[in-house]
């Protein structure tokens, strides 16, 4: 069934415990993108055959399009939820992440993290007269 590889990426992230970032699954993402490419090509072929007068191909096109949307949703959710974990770690560990987490981040995630750090630092610097570190005192005072 289509969408199985994409779901495996999601399950892998779902199994990872809080505060742990699993290694970036490059190969899994590549396989899902490969499935999407072949689904799209098959749909292109069916649409051309329909234009040429062949009947009854619509259901296949519909099914493959639903699978394409599903694959896309799983890939984006995989990336998005990894970023959420990384962002939570920024608030927990500070602007320098532990080495074991950093090794599991992709190059693009490191770039994202650098930009996020900069945005957050710029924002905190503008608070109050001399700035305010929002990541301190996360628990309300007594």
């Amino acid at each position, binding site marked *: 069934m289509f969408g199985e590889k994409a779901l495996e990426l999601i399950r892998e992230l779902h199994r990872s415990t809080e505060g742990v970032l699993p290694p970036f699954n490059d190969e899994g993402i590549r396989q899902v993108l490969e499935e999407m490419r072949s689904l799209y090509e098959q749909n292109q072929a069916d649409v051309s055959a329909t234009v040429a007068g062949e009947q009854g191909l619509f259901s296949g096109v519909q*099914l493959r399009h639903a699978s394409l949307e599903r694959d896309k949703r799983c890939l984006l959710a995989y990336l998005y939820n990894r970023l959420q974990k990384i962002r939570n770690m920024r608030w927990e560990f500070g602007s320098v992440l532990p080495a074991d987490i950093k090794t599991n981040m992709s190059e693009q995630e490191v770039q994202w993290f650098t930009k996020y750090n900069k945005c957050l630092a710029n924002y905190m610097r503008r608070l109050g007269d001399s700035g305010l570190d929002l990541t301190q005192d996360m628990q309300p005072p007594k």
Partner: protein
Amino acid sequence: MSLVEIPYTRYSSSSDNYYCIDDIIATCEKIPSKVEQPLFRLGFLDPSTDNTTIQPGTKLELPFWLASSLCTRRRRLVSVDMPKTYKDSFREILKADANVVDLHKIGPYYYSFGSKLLHFDHPEIGDIADSLLQGFISRFRRIMDSSQNAYNEDTTHLTCKLDESERCVFKAGQKGLDDFQRWQTGQTT
């Protein structure tokens, strides 16, 4: 408002959040479906045939995310039936004594997936909606009691039969209890 008066509407629960991992996993649960129009070049979907075409009348188990795309008001390429664990006989068990049912084994997204079934035009969805509501309400008290009274102990035996939504409720109760205990012992600074 008594239970009967609660008007259930076609709602998309907040867990329809596009990026929500729980929602993605819940929507891969299988739904008994029947093919209504020939599906050409999709024979691989039906393991019991070598044919490349799936003929009308063929019964398949499709994941929710696919069935909900092929069975809409506008286009019914397949028709769906309700999964066994939402049918009348199971609803009776839930009504008889909801607390003994192991919703984790049956689910684990029993309520979330059940809510999604309400998207379909099916004669039983009104009863399913009531059954989900009644089941949750019946089990809620015990979840809250046990989560409020289990401090610093292993809670596996208390949560092993809970579905994912109920485990979230249990976790929230535990956090409230933990916060209160820490405040009482002056640990909250």
